[in-house]
């Protein structure tokens, strides 16, 4: 069945709008990144693909996962999907999976720092919270 074949995901953000982030999920290495801005009105539709990918990857490959979140901005609709994603990773880590999450934020942006702290406090999944210096 086609949906049993797991493949890497690459989605390039549309440069004309800040609605969709750039996504790069590498099946071979388990290194996954979501970057840019995420203002999707119906974020669940977009993130369900990513959530299903993690579920299948964990089930079929049982490999390491490194998730790099470099989101400069996301709306609350996306924020809920990110929580769902982190909860899956937390569950995997608790059952023995190797999971690393790196959260990048612009050093002046305290709101995005607090977002990271709130995810850690709520999911209990540790994250490396890394400030990016201004260009």
């Amino acid at each position: 069945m086609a949906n049993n074949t797991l493949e890497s995901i690459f989605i390039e953000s549309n440069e004309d709008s800040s609605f969709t982030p750039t996504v790069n999920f590498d099946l071979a290495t388990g290194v996954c990144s979501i970057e840019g801005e995420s203002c999707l009105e119906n974020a669940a539709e977009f993130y369900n693909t990513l959530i299903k990918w993690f579920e299948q990857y964990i089930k079929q490959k049982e490999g390491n996962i490194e998730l790099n979140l470099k989101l400069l901005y996301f709306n609350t609709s996306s924020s809920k999907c990110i929580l769902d994603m982190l909860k899956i990773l937390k569950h995997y880590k608790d059952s023995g999976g190797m999971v690393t999450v790196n959260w990048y934020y612009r050093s002046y942006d305290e709101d995005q720092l607090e977002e990271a702290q709130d995810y850690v406090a709520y999911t209990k999944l540790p994250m490396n919270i890394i400030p990016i210096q201004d260009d």
Partner: protein
Amino acid sequence: MLFEDTSIAYNQPQEVFSYNGPMSHTIISELGDFIKVWLSDDEKSSKKVFAILIELLQNASYYSKSSITVHENQEHGVGRFILSHDQDFFYMECGNLVSTSTASKLDQAIEHINSLDHQALRKYKREQRDKPREEESKGAGIGLIQVALLSSNPLQASFTPKGNEYFFYSNTIRINKQKANTLEKI
């Protein structure tokens, strides 16, 4: 839409732009892009104003009781939005038509949000974010909490009756100018 002169001559808030119409994906994106250009020399304010604008407009788009079909199968909620500013603040006013029952729910929700301090709001958001989506809602239902967190000021809502079944709900958000703040602290 773009004013050449953004300097402020008077203490009265100066209007930057106003919009009244369907809150389509394209419109929200255009207005968001405008904020980034307009506030390009103040990244901190730019991010806050942009983030609040998106939440307000997407809320109007989801929940407005009046809607317009722009293209076939594309119905968008109609809302009103006004951006203005003075020396100390940005003001964002967003409004749309709601049913009487929604008006009373919003009124209660806003009163609760305004009663919480920053840390309590963060806690409230963490809890609300994990609740199952309401069936009719595409959003996460935490937009207003997020707006209050980002603006660090109380939400100022008003409800004006429209006939027997509806209210025009309007919310004004005040955002401290980040640059002015920084200067004051030094």
